[in-house]
C-alpha cells in the first residue's frame, strides 16, 4: 500500500483499504460476503479507470515525480540478470545520481545507464535528488563507448529534475559534459534505447536521450523546463504550474502525437508505483521488441538512421 498519497489517489486507496478490511473481517468470522466484496472490487476498478484514464498533465507530473515510483535501480533488479555495477568517470569522481553497469536482458549482455532518484529523503540526499553532475554524464559517456567496443546494446533510464546547477558543476564543465554526450551518442555504433521512466527534465534528460528509440512510460514527463519554472517565467507565478504543464505538451501521449518520441510503455492502472512488477513486465515486452528490431540493423546503418531521425525534427521543409 502506498505511503504517500496524491489527492486523486485517495478515493481509490480508501476503497481498497475498506475491501481489505472487510476481507480480513469475513475471514476471521467465517462470514461469506463474497458478492459484496465483488461489487466493491468492481467499483474500485471502475473508479481507477475513470481517474487514471483522464489524468491531467499536472497529475501525471505528480505521478512521474512520485517518491515511490520505481527508479532505474528497481528496473535493473526486475529486468536484468548477472548485474555488475560499474563506477567512475576516470577523471574526477563517481556520481551517485547515475547508476551504470552491465547485465543480461533475456540472456543478451547489455550496458545500462540510468539517472536515479531516491525513495526517501535519506536516499535522495545520497543521490542528489537525481540531479546529474558533470562526472555523471562523463561516466555515461565512458560506459556507452565501452559498450560500443563490445557491440553491446545500451539501455538508458532517464529520471531527473535536471542537471545539477552548482558552483562545482559549473567549474567541472556541466554544459561541456552534456554537449559531449549528445555528440557521442549520435554516432555510437551500437543500438541505444532510451526510456524516460519518470521525470525527463531539460538538457540533463536529453543528454541520455539520443539513440535509436526514445520510449516513455505512460505517466512519465519530458520537458524543456519544469512546469514550475515555466509558470514563473510566463506568469510570474510558480503556482500556475498545472497550466504550464498543459501548455508545454510534456506527457507521453502528446509527445508521441508530435512525433518527438517513438513509443509509450503502458503502466498498470494506478501508476507504476502501485505495481512495479507489472510496470517492469510491460517494459520488458517493449524492450524485447525494440531490441530485436535494432539488432537486425548493421551499426553503420543504425548511425545513419539515427541521424536522419534527429535531422528531421523541427526542419520546416
Amino acid at each position, binding site marked *: 500500500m502506498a505511503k504517500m498519497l496524491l489527492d486523486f489517489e485517495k478515493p481509490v486507496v480508501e476503497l481498497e483499504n475498506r475491501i481489505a478490511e472487510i476481507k480480513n473481517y469475513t475471514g476471521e468470522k467465517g462470514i461469506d460476503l463474497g458478492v459484496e466484496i465483488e461489487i466493491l472490487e468492481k467499483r474500485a476498478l471502475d473508479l481507477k479507470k475513470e481517474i487514471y484514464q483522464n489524468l491531467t498533465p499536472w497529475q501525471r507530473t505528480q505521478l512521474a515525480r512520485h517518491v515511490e515510483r520505481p527508479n532505474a535501480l528497481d528496473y535493473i533488479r526486475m529486468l536484468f540478470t548477472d548485474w555488475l555495477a560499474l563506477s567512475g568517470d576516470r577523471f574526477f569522481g563517481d556520481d551517485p545520481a547515475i547508476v551504470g553497469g552491465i547485465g543480461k536482458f533475456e540472456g543478451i549482455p547489455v550496458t545500462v545507464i540510468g539517472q536515479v532518484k531516491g525513495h526517501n529523503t535519506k536516499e535522495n540526499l545520497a543521490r542528489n535528488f537525481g540531479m546529474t553532475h558533470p562526472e555523471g554524464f562523463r561516466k555515461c559517456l565512458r560506459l556507452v563507448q565501452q559498450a560500443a567496443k563490445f557491440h553491446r546494446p545500451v539501455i538508458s533510464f532517464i529520471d531527473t529534475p535536471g542537471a545539477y546547477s552548482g558552483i562545482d558543476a559549473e567549474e567541472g564543465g556541466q554544459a561541456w559534459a552534456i554537449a559531449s554526450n549528445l555528440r557521442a551518442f549520435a554516432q555510437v555504433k551500437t543500438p541505444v534505447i532510451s526510456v524516460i521512466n519518470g521525470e525527463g527534465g*531539460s538538457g540533463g534528460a536529453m543528454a541520455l536521450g539520443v539513440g535509436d528509440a526514445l520510449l516513455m512510460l505512460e505517466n512519465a514527463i519530458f520537458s*524543456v523546463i519544469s512546469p514550475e519554472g515555466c509558470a514563473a517565467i510566463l506568469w510570474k507565478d510558480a503556482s500556475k504550474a498545472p497550466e504550464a504543464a498543459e501548455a508545454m505538451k510534456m506527457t507521453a501521449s502528446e509527445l508521441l502525437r508530435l512525433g*518527438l518520441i517513438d513509443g509509450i510503455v503502458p503502466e498498470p492502472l494506478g501508476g507504476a508505483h502501485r505495481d512495479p512488477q507489472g510496470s517492469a513486465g510491460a517494459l520488458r515486452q517493449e524492450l524485447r521488441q525494440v531490441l530485436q528490431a535494432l539488432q537486425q540493423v548493421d551499426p553503420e546503418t543504425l548511425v545513419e538512421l539515427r541521424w536522419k531521425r534527429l535531422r528531421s525534427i523541427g526542419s520546416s521543409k
Partner: protein
Amino acid sequence: MVGSDYMFKDLFRKPQRYITVRSDAMPQEKGTLWIKCPECGEILYARELEKNLNVCRKCSHHFRLSAPERLAITLDEDSFLELDADLDTVDPLSFPEYKDKLARAQEATGLQDAILTGAGAILGWPVLVGAFEPHFIMGSMGSVVGEKITRLAERAIEKKLPLLLFSASGGARMQEGVFSLMQMAKTCAAIARLNEAGILYISVLTDPTTGGVTASFATLGDIIIAEPGALIGFAGRRVTEQTLKEKLPPDFQTAEFCLKHGLIDLVAPRQDMKPTLARILSLHSDNIERVDN
C-alpha cells in the same frame, strides 16, 4: 580538395541575396545619443562607442551586439551572403502568447528568428558563419535556429569550408518545448558529422551564452573563444543562487572563469577578434583559397 574547382559564388544554389550588413545600434538604443556604461557608469557618446566596436573606452565593458552588428565588424565588407533566410518559425505547441512574442521580436530586430547565417570572408578567408541575435527572445534556440545551424554545418561539409558560430543565447526556447531540446541533439549530431569530415569549427561565446546552447553545439568547437566578461554557463545565475542559497563568487560563469577552469581556449577582446579568427583560419587553410578582399 576544394582547390581549383572551388568557386566562392558556387556556394549558393538559390538566387543570391547580398545583404548589406547594417551596424545599427541595438533596437532599444536606436536614436540615443548618449549611453551609460552599465559596468562603470561612464557616459559614452553613442557614435564614439560604435566606432570603438561597442566597447566602453573607460572600462572595456563589451556591449552586446545585434547579429548584423556582429557580422559587420567581423566580416570583410560586402562579403556576406545570407543563407536560409526564408525559414518560417512555426508554433508547434500552440503555446500561449508565442505568436505575439515572435511578431514583436521580428518587428524589433528585423530578423525572422534568433540567428543570422550565411557565407562570408574574414581578411579574405572564406567561412560559413552564424551569429545569434541576443535581442530575439533572448537569442533562444528553437527549431529554426537549430535547423539553420544544422544546414550551415551541412554546407560546411559539402563545400569543405570552416564553420564559425557566434553564440549569444539564453538557451533552449521554452515556447517550442521538446522541439527545442531536440535541436540541442540535432546540432550536436551535425557537429559530430563535421568532425568526421575534418572540417574546422570555431565557436565564439559572447554575452550571454547559457543553458541549452552552452550544453550543445557552442561548447563543441575545435577552438572555443570567448569575449571578455561574457556570461557563460549552464544554469542561470539566479537558479544556481536559489539552489545553493548563497552568494556566488564575482567571476562565476564569466569568460575568465571558464578559461581558468580549462573550458575554453582563449579570451579575445573584440578589437582582436577579427585578426585572431583570421589567424586560426590561415592555420587551417590547406586546400582553401583566399577570396579577394
